[in-house]
């Protein structure tokens, strides 16, 4: 029976990493928000790997934090090991990754949500969206309760018509046996939304007591932990860390896998969804890289208060008995006991080209979406989309322009632009190589790039924002000082340079020039920089990077200027490209399908050539000219 339950400003469907950020953003902006989940016990669940961050994903978390999101703060509270990856590489690819205590992570996030004003949590399955002439009016639950709302954010993750598979066993459940959401898909289809099916997978969890760690290499955390959140005091999170362990597969493992490929649903055709190439199952790795003699297996704790260990690198959908056999060929796992089987999971999601860059559906006004539902993968990718969808849903209600980050501002911008512009045939994962301007989009300067925007949105406090302005100023002043401070070829300086394996000076130079030398840096120059005033660590880091990589940074900034020109030429969303004479048919088709918001975005759509863009520019100019003439008349 249908009945009217309540009215809200915003409905959020799903309480995973996207749903949590969306709900928090809306509620914190003062909107009455309700968040639905099939299981309140599974808020912010980490159903796969037990870590947050990693290459380029760490960037996303820091960006999210700068904008006012929660993920960074939550992992800072609940991590049990932390590492800055790629430390020997350039600053652009340094990336934080922390092992989480999964249960603690969930509990801590739930605690934040439950104590946020304007936020209601409700356990129920949303089965329908309600619309009136293309405008969202509410949602209905499976039990028939109708919730009216002004906007909704769909963050259903892997739960829509979910099916978990290993061997010939398949269960119509979400991750960890949680209830799937089997009804919403039909309602979305009825509203003209095109659905598709993706798959992903996870390895087994095993009992710590059954592992022989003496046969594995210990993987320690960093000695000094760097927090994810810009608002976390580094001193407050230095603590004892838990180890991870490394072992390897071998030829016996591979033999067992090869012998049993026929029993894998991936190869027998029982799985129809498209899986991601970047996190292949172990059977995929063995088939695609037959020459590799061994693959790494990372054995990672799931938390402090559990014996379960995650077998990173060995996700699989092989039958239970084969899983046992193959895991037990791995050194240290000879007597391993499985707690939870590895499995593949298939789920409904959308082709994200149906979204605007604000993450609102083109076809349904007021309906937004984020996370794995949009065809991405990963907790971090989900969180940032949920946040942006939530912010933009809130802004729509408040009558404000959406916040759209572009490719030169943030990894978040790259991620969303890729999702809504490119043909994504598999779950989308963030990678540093996807960011054209990665020297500018560093994890160390996420606050400088984005906190101003977060403040404008209303999710960064005045106090935090003022601190940022002070930091900015300190960086600028110190760079100027170094550029302006001359250093003579004194005996002391020459000796200093020699000691550091640096060429002695022939004539005077500036401190900045010395910082630029590959073998020197800001800290090392303390001895010969007599007027130096002690500065905070984060300021020093920025000064060093900005001076050292000045040439590269300038080059990227020039590229950004060029990029912005095309980005700033806006296109009408309701425009019919068939009107443009001279466009090739493929281009008309693609442009009408994607309805890009700018010439820049149009140029990134596959199938739209540079000549098409020229034609389009000419056409636009023609139209503008027409308008001017008409106005004059």
């Amino acid at each position, binding site marked *: 029976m249908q009945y009217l339950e309540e009215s809200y400003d915003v409905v959020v469907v799903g309480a995973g990493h996207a749903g949590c950020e969306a709900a928090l953003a809306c509620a914190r902006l003062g909107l009455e928000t309700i968040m639905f989940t099939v299981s309140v016990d599974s808020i912010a669940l980490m159903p796969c790997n037990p870590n947050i961050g990693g290459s380029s994903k760490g960037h996303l978390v820091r960006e999210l934090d700068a904008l006012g999101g929660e993920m960074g703060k939550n992992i800072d509270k609940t991590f049990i090991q932390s590492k800055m990856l*790629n430390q020997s590489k350039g600053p652009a690819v340094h990336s934080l990754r922390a092992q989480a205590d999964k249960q603690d992570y969930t509990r801590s996030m739930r605690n934040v949500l439950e104590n946020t004003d304007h936020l209601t949590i409700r356990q129920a399955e949303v089965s329908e969206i309600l619309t009136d002439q293309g405008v969202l009016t509410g949602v209905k639950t499976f039990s028939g309760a109708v919730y009216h709302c002004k906007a909704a954010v769909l963050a259903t993750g892997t739960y829509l018509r979910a099916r978990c598979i290993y061997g010939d066993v398949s269960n119509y459940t979400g991750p960890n046996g949680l209830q799937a959401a089997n009804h919403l898909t039909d309602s979305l289809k009825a509203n003209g939304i095109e659905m598709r099916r993706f798959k992903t997978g996870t*390895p087994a969890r095993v009992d710590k007591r059954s592992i022989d760690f003496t046969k594995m290499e210990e993987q320690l955390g960093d000695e000094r932990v760097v927090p994810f959140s810009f608002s976390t005091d580094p001193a407050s999170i230095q603590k004892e860390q838990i180890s991870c362990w490394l072992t390897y597969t071998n030829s016996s493992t591979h033999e067992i896998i090869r012998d049993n490929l026929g029993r894998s649903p991936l190869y027998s055709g029982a799985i129809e969804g498209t899986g991601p190439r970047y996190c292949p199952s172990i059977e995929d790795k063995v088939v695609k890289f037959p020459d590799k003699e061994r693959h790494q297996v990372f054995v990672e704790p799931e938390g402090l208060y559990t014996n379960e260990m995650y077998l990173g690198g060995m996700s699989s959908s092989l039958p239970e008995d084969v899983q046992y056999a193959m895991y037990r060929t791995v050194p240290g796992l000879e007597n391993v006991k499985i707690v939870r089987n590895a499995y593949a999971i298939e789920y409904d999601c959308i082709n994200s080209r149906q979204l605007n860059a604000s993450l609102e559906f083109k076809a349904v006004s007021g309906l937004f979406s984020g996370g794995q539902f949009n065809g991405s993968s990963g907790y971090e990718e989900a969180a940032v989309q949920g946040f942006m969808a939530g912010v933009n849903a809130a802004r729509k209600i408040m009558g404000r322009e959406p916040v759209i980050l572009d490719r030169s501002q943030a990894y978040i911008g790259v991620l969303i632009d890729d999702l809504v512009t490119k043909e994504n045939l598999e779950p989308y994962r963030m*990678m540093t190589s996807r960011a054209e301007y990665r020297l500018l989009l560093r994890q160390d300067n996420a606050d400088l790039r984005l906190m101003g925007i977060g403040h404008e949105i209303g999710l960064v406090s005045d106090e935090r924002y003022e601190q940022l302005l002070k930091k900015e100023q300190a960086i600028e002043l110190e760079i100027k000082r170094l550029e302006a401070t001359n250093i003579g070829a004194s005996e002391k300086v020459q000796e200093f340079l020699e000691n550091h394996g640096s060429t002695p000076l022939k004539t005077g130079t500036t401190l900045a020039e010395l910082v630029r030398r590959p073998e020197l840096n800001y800290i090392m120059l303390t001895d010969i920089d007599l007027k130096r005033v002690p500065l905070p660590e984060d300021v020093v880091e920025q000064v060093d990077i900005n001076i050292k990589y000045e040439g590269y940074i300038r080059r990227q900034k020039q590229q950004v200027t060029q990029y912005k020109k095309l980005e700033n030429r806006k296109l009408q969303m309701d425009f019919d490209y068939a009107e443009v004479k001279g466009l090739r048919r493929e281009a008309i088709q693609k442009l009408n399908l994607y309805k890009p918001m700018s010439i820049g975005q149009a140029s990134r759509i596959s199938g739209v050539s540079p000549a098409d863009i020229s034609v389009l520019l000419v056409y636009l100019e*023609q139209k503008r000219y027409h308008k001017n003439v008409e106005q004059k008349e």
Partner: protein
Amino acid sequence: MKMNTIAAIATAMSSSGIGIVRISGEESFQIIDRVFKGKGKRVKKLSDQKSHTVHYGFIYDGDELIDEVLVLIMKGPGSYTGEDTVEIDCHGGILVTKKILETVLKYGARPAEPGEFTKRAFLSGRIDLTQAEAVIDVINAKNQYALKSSVSQLEGAVSKRVRALREVIIYHIAFIESALDDPEHISLDGYHETLLQAVIPLKEELKRLIRSSENGRVLSEGIETVILGKPNAGKSSLLNVLVGEDRAIVTDIAGTTRDTLKEQIMLEDLSLNVIDTAGIRDTEDIVEKIGVEKARHAAEGADLIIYVVDGSCSLDVNDEEILAFIEDRKAVIVLNKSDLSMVVTPDMLNKRTSHKVITVSARNRSGIEELEHEIKTMFYEGEIDFNDQVYITNVRQKNALEEALRSLGMVEQSIHDGMSEDFYSIDLMDAYEQLGIILGESVEDDLVNEIFSKFCMGK
């Protein structure tokens, strides 16, 4: 990054009296300031001059004087394109005009796309509305044309070689990126050495390609030709016949110091730049006077050597020596004076050279057609239209090759400077994109695909 200031030759690529190189875009004035020197000692900065003024001076590439020119400067929006525009009027002739364009490209402009000046003119509202559709047609047509000509030029060997280069480059980018994305699975320890060993042969191959792109140059700019022969072998007679009264397209092209003169001869579509004409004409004795060594030197930079043998005198040591050193160069042997009684026979020459021997009488004009035909077959490969479109394509390609080479040089530099691996991939990507321009291919998802297909990543 050279981006937004474009340059092209605005006049037809023929041996007309004046050639115009046009530059348009934000940096036009900065670029012209880098290459222009006024007369007199005072430095004249054209960027400081009034709009729509003409200036006399010289174009330099660094210290090297290119040509004496008139430069017209027009500040935007009062120009054809609506942007800051510079026009360089030079002495015409393909060589000089092209050299000026190359200099301008070297100092910051990029080659204009087909129809790009017109497009810019339109976009800044300089062209009437009724012309809009024509512009669209031009863009489409020219793009197709450019593509067609570049494809026809590149069919076969060159495109294969460029593709092979790109494959190596993208492999290395993908390797670096995989390791950056998944540092715990893929290690970059000691990789800089491997990359350095890969970059060196890549650079060598690029250099070879740049040199071979000179073949295209030969077709479009003319064949650098040297006529060698002993005194009275009939070199100037032959030249006169080749120039001919009915072939009036002949210009003197002033070189930098005016001490080398080049005569241009058109053989239908093919042009020969006959070097040191004055020398040949005045002295008639290039071999004797300056000696075999000098002849060798003169022939060094030539695309074509025409060795004229006097059939009425017997062969001597000089002939033997010259025939020997032109053996592995592009050359044709002319056995002249067939109107007189011959002591040298084609057979005698055929024994000493693998080059084609053509019997000619410059006086009676016999055998000339055969000679022309032979030269044409030597250089004319395939159906290539000789016109400015193909020429532009050539410049763009060469430009891209040079940019790619420069980018690889920067990779090498970064390795030597001990930069970290993520910096290598920036310049490797630039090289990859530049080579893509030659093939008309864009990057799109190449990299991501390469990463996933070649390297095993992930959880």
